[in-house]
């Protein structure tokens, strides 16, 4: 019986988080308190220290700093504007055209950079102003930008799916990446349909069509940026290289593209790009180290088995359990950042759902899509903060136009959860 341990873990974590201790330290300290109850002190802290260090010593995790670095080169290298131009000639004419441009640019940029925050700032910084100038309301534009930035986390390559692969004990990264395409694009389309209706009702203006020569020029301009997706994904899916090797190739590719082809990054900029990368990386790494520690503490205290017993007591119906897990994750996502949520809750929920016959690939996508919603909600929605920051509006203003978009996200989540074929047919096609 270790109910007191669960109690200490959950409550000390909530209190620490609530008073404003950084998330990684809250995770680490609550794990430390819990372990101190059940072990002598020196072995307890030594074990945690060892878990932190060994968690980071992983060749798979190396993909994360490199995808972040590639994202930095893209951010500063003029890749965002080229993707926006491409989306504009493609969909600018439709009703709600600029909202579509925003969403598609976020999907492309988010996919290439693998970061929702980078997409929200790079695309939002440009598009929100542009939409406002054409007559769109600013809160609506920001809401569209914030919600659509999360699509890039599901559309590959995606760092969070790499983290899920690690937490799940080795679900194939290539399979997860393949599985992300359809749900990610579906989410983008759901957001587009809401934005389209909204723009139609508000009679927002549309762009006049571009000439064919203009379209061809913009497509050609964007091709070198889009080629990155082809190289990285082709290599990983074709089994030519691992995700980590692909990330290193992405660094070389984006560096060459932004410095030699687009010529927007200079050699002097490199130290600051590297420093920014190491800062962003370490924030994630400390979260990973602390979360792996907490995850170990949980399995040491048999917490996954107890949660599983409680859940199966409520119901043994697959659909009910999935609904409960989704509700728990939505709640968790509101208070917790995505990385620790995936690392801590995968070991708890994955055994339950695989027992019920769910494919681990499918569960990974459901979990990430679910937690994407939390990224857009206060109090810890990192994408929300960046999105309102670049739009220079307050969180209160953005919430109302975001509600219909939230509903679109929730409907997509239910669809993805209960129709596994949407997620799985594409990886199945490649034999996973």
């Amino acid at each position: 019986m270790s109910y007191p341990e669960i109690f200490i873990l959950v409550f000390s974590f909530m209190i620490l988080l609530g008073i404003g201790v950084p998330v990684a330290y809250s995770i680490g300290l609550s794990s430390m308190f819990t372990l101190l109850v059940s072990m002598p002190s020196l072995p307890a802290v030594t074990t945690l220290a060892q878990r932190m260090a060994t968690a980071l010593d992983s060749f798979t995790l190396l993909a994360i700093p490199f995808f972040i670095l590639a994202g930095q080169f893209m951010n500063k290298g003029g890749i965002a504007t080229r993707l926006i131009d491409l989306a504009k000639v493609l969909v600018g004419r439709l009703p709600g055209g600029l909202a579509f441009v925003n969403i598609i640019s976020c999907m492309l940029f988010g996919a290439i950079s693998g970061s929702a925050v980078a997409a929200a700032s790079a695309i939002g910084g440009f598009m929100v102003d542009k939409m406002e100038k054409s007559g769109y309301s600013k809160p609506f534009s920001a809401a569209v930008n914030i919600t659509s930035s999360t699509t890039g986390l599901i559309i590959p390559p995606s760092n969070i799916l790499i983290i899920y692969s690690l937490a799940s004990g080795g679900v194939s990264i290539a399979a997860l990446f393949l599985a992300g395409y359809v749900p990610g694009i579906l989410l983008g389309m759901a957001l587009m349909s809401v934005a389209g209706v909204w723009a139609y009702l508000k009679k927002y203006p549309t762009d006049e069509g571009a000439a064919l020569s203009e379209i061809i020029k913009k497509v050609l301009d964007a091709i070198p940026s889009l080629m990155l997706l082809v190289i990285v994904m082709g290599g990983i899916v074709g089994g030519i290289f691992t995700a980590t090797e692909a990330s290193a190739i992405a660094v070389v590719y984006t560096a060459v593209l932004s410095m030699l082809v687009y010529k927007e990054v200079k050699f002097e900029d490199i130290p600051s790009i590297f420093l920014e990368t190491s800062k962003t990386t370490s924030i994630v790494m400390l979260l990973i180290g602390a979360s792996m520690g907490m995850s170990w503490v949980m399995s040491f205290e048999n917490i996954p088995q107890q949660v599983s017993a409680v859940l199966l007591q409520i119901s043994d119906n697959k659909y009910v359990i999935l609904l409960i897990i989704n509700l728990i994750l939505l709640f968790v996502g509101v208070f917790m950042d995505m990385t620790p949520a995936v690392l801590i809750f995968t070991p708890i929920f994955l055994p339950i759902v695989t027992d019920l016959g769910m494919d681990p690939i499918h569960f990974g996508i459901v979990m990430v899509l679910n937690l994407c919603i939390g990224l857009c909600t206060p109090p810890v929605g990192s994408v929300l903060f960046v999105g309102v920051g670049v739009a220079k509006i307050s969180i209160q203003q953005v919430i109302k136009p975001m509600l219909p978009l939230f509903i679109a996200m929730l409907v997509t989540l239910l669809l993805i959860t209960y129709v596994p074929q949407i997620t799985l047919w594409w990886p199945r096609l490649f034999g996973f």
Partner: protein
Amino acid sequence: MSKVIRLLEYVLVVLITIMTIDVIWQVASRYLFQSPSSFTDELAGFLLVWVGLLGAAYALGKRAHLAIDILPKKLEGRSRVALLMIIECCITLFSIGVMVIGGTNLVYLTFTLEQKSASLQIPLGYVYIILPISGLLMAYFSLNHMLESRKDIVK
């Protein structure tokens, strides 16, 4: 404190540069020269531990870690400073407890057990030594933040 941050910046840029070159070299040696090098992936893993933990201390110095700051923002004056002190104490407690004490013991254990890495044959203690180092840096930054908040209240 600003000098320590400056120094950390140099070290981090050097480490992450080596890490990048190391992995690019690994890919190149595997595909271009057909002779995969055996130590690069091990070295890269160790460098990631170093960059991750040293960078975490740097990020703390820059107050860049994610936190829910609703409560600290709502409070004012003395109670705000008191809360900020409690937060910094929690950070110090973890840094000293797990990273410095736990980390030092871990380094001690791996040295006495003579654990070495598989291909480079480096004693693993040299890799783990970054735990107490960055724990100490974290505690140092945290104490500095406490002093800064105290100055605010004097004003």
